[in-house]
């Protein structure tokens, strides 16, 4: 099939970017979206042009490295998958496809479609852990039973792959879904309870410092999240925040 691609090209963070048109004449519907971009890049390189930079690694929806804003939606049109899991059979012959980076003040563009998401790392460094030593000899794993429903809920929150689609989807570029998923995972587990108050306070403080926007409950994040992380996490985080008694 034939496609017209409109791809965001930006040499580096300091220069202005723009959408550039590319035509592909022979796209195989069974290729993945990223394989389609590989094919484009191959052609560009052979022609002596610069290939389009984009992030990716596992190509199976788990590392969270791929991004891309495709036709106005993070990770493209399908629900519950990351860009690397999207296949070209989802598009029609003759379609025009807009491909842009995840945009947010806290995610500056590095080059073309590659953005800097290290703000997420810094939020985690501010408190996204349980302070146990790794070299000690902790108690036997079965000493503290955890109700299955609680463990499963903690797991569901923990499935976040840290991709940043929630931020890109949000008109305020809020990182609430991401931060709340981590806070929920740890707050739900007895091991994480001990530090719950300081954790939520420190992570939220860091989140604000990174320049993410406020949450106005539009719910766009939940719809675009490739792991379908639920808005309940945000509600839980707000409760944790109130419990922590931090003044805003």
């Amino acid at each position, binding site marked *: 099939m034939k496609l017209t691609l409109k791809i965001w090209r930006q040499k580096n963070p300091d220069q202005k970017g723009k959408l550039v048109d590319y035509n592909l004449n022979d796209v195989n519907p069974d290729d993945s979206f990223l394989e389609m971009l590989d094919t484009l890049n191959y052609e560009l390189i052979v022609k*002596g042009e610069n290939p389009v930079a984009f992030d990716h690694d596992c*190509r*199976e929806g788990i590392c969270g490295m791929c991004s891309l804003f495709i036709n106005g939606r993070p990770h493209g049109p399908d629900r519950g998958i990351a860009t690397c899991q999207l296949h070209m059979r989802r598009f029609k012959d003759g379609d025009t496809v807009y491909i842009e980076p995840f945009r947010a003040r806290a995610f500056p563009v590095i080059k073309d479609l590659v953005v800097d998401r290290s703000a997420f790392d810094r939020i985690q460094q501010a408190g996204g852990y349980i302070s146990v030593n790794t070299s000690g000899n902790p108690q*036997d794993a079965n000493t503290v*039973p955890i109700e299955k429903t609680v463990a499963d809920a*903690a797991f569901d929150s923990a499935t976040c792959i840290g991709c940043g689609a929630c931020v890109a989807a949000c008109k305020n570029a809020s990182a609430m879904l991401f931060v709340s998923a981590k806070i929920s995972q740890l707050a739900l587990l007895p091991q994480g309870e001990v530090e719950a108050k300081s954790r939520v306070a420190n992570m939220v403080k860091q989140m604000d410092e990174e320049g993410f926007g406020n949450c106005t409950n539009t719910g766009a994040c939940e719809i675009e999240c490739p792991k379908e992380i639920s808005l309940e996490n945000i509600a839980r985080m707000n409760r944790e925040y109130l419990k922590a008694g931090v003044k805003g």
Partner: protein
Amino acid sequence: MNRLDAKIPDGPLSEKWTNHKNRLNLISPANKRTLDVIVVGTGLAGGSAAATLAELGYNVKSFCFQDSPRRAHSVAAQGGINAAKNYQGDGDSVYRLFYDTIKGGDYRSREANVYRLAEVSSNIIDQCVAQGVPFAREYGGLLDNRSFGGVQVSRTFYAKGQTGQQLLLGVYAALNRQIGRGKIQMFNRHEMMDVVVIDGRARGIISRNLITGAIERHSAHAVVIASGGYGNLFYLSTYAMGSNASAAWKAHRKGAFLANPCFNQIHPTAIPVGGPNQSKLTLMSESLRNDGRIWVPKNLEDAKAIREGSKKPGDIEDGDRDYYLERQYPAFGNLVPRDVASRAAKERCDAGYGVNVTGQAVFLDFASAIYRSGKEKANVSGLKNVDDATIRKLGKEVMKQKYGNLFQMYHKIVDQNPYETPMKIYPTTHYTMGGLWVDYNLMTTVPGLFAIGEANFSDHGANRLGASALMQGLADGYFILPYTIGDYLSDDIGTGKITTASTEFEEAESEVKETIKKLIGNEGSHPVDYFHKKLGKIMWQYCGINRNKEGLERAMKKIRSVREEFWENVIVPGTAEEFNEELAKAGRLADFLELAELYAKDALFREESCGAHLRQEFQTADGEAMRNDVDFAHVAAWEYTGDPGDARLHKEKLVYENIEVKQRSYK
């Protein structure tokens, strides 16, 4: 001096590690603060090591090429992690895990290392739970287990289909805690380009900042390589796109021996190649073989009709299907080890029975499992006189609970619904048992240079059991390396800061820059992938599931010629001073093209069939692998001499004192 002294402590097997730990030299906290350690890699192995070293007081610099340590390839592991907890009371023990691992590895791993691995395994689970890893639990609130890889006990801990991500997030959290405390300096999007050796000791690395292209010098008192496996030699594999051999290969070039490079595991159940632009292959977890039955048509005409689309799998009557694993291996059936299942699939497809367009696929069929479990469910729910449609509906629900995410993944990629029609699967490269040679202390043949996780060769012999790689990564990083490295560093406390203003750093840096200049300046006509695909084809054809002398010799020649062609004819766009993925890819492929030749040489040299390595000349009359314990019960450790094809072989004899060496049989 024998350069291959494995330094195995004396004493009875079960006391070796404890005694050894008691005898290791310690370093006072004040002195640890003056020692620097570099860790390359933030997967389960590197991440856990960095966190623990920092916690012990060392100053750590940690490197990964992704944009965050949380994306290391460990994240993709699906099935689970083994530990000898015996929570199920099914007779598991440290000895049994040790025994299964040695046997699974076809008697090509070191007793002492494997025993230690089994010994610390149980502590890994304690550690992870304390960190908040949400393992699957039973209704009573205790941890759940499943069985894996054909062993007879249930010792695998798991977190649905994403055990790797959950364990890695635990490691990442520990790492973050130390980064927050300022004890670890994290270098994301940095690629290690070379190791710097000064007066015979590893003293640092040269790295490239993947955003700016800056070449940087980093010094340390010791360097740890935790860069994962090299399966991307095959171009198509279950590895992430960026997984590479460069850190290990550069270490090899600087004097570290490489052990058993040809021991490479081909996993039997991946989604087959779909088209010419395929960039990677997705694994379908081993756990599926508990319920799926593998088959191809009995008749060649049926196979042809299916390939051409004139028949559907459902059109083939049960009597016309060949459930070849059940036929050939009645005792283990569909649950034979990975190497056996992979070979059998290839054999059937080569004989013309393959079931997709390329002829390179077999069926993994859930229809009988759906029916069986549907019936069970109906019985348990007290339903009487239910029709087949209802039974199948119930059965599909059971499958969904067990394998929902895998079925969804398959559906997305192949656009076929595995609840309705059998999956098509085919073997692919998945894990490399070979790697940097290390002694009992996990130190390579270069003093001060350590290797952990999949990057070393240590514990899995010629074949790894399912759910044991995650265990090994965390064992190395949390519980072994942090102590053994202290013993090495204890005579380094007076050395002081290592300067980067030495000729050794100077030379390493200019060599790196020279290589980059050559790549960027080359006026070739083919992109990197062109050569990588070529290499992958050679590897798959001659160095994959089956190997023979003639083919391996041919492979060595062909690899050499692709290497020459690459240097003459590759195009690398852009400049060295910017974000340039093609440049990174070119550097990695340059190293793969050297390692590949050594891989083929190692396979050629090993004149036996063992574990994942099947040499066609060494088989029994009925096509089973024939090991040669008299001549090959050793680790083949290769020394770099300037040309990968001329590497020098050193042998470490493997001695079995606690286990009876037997021929494997799954009939």
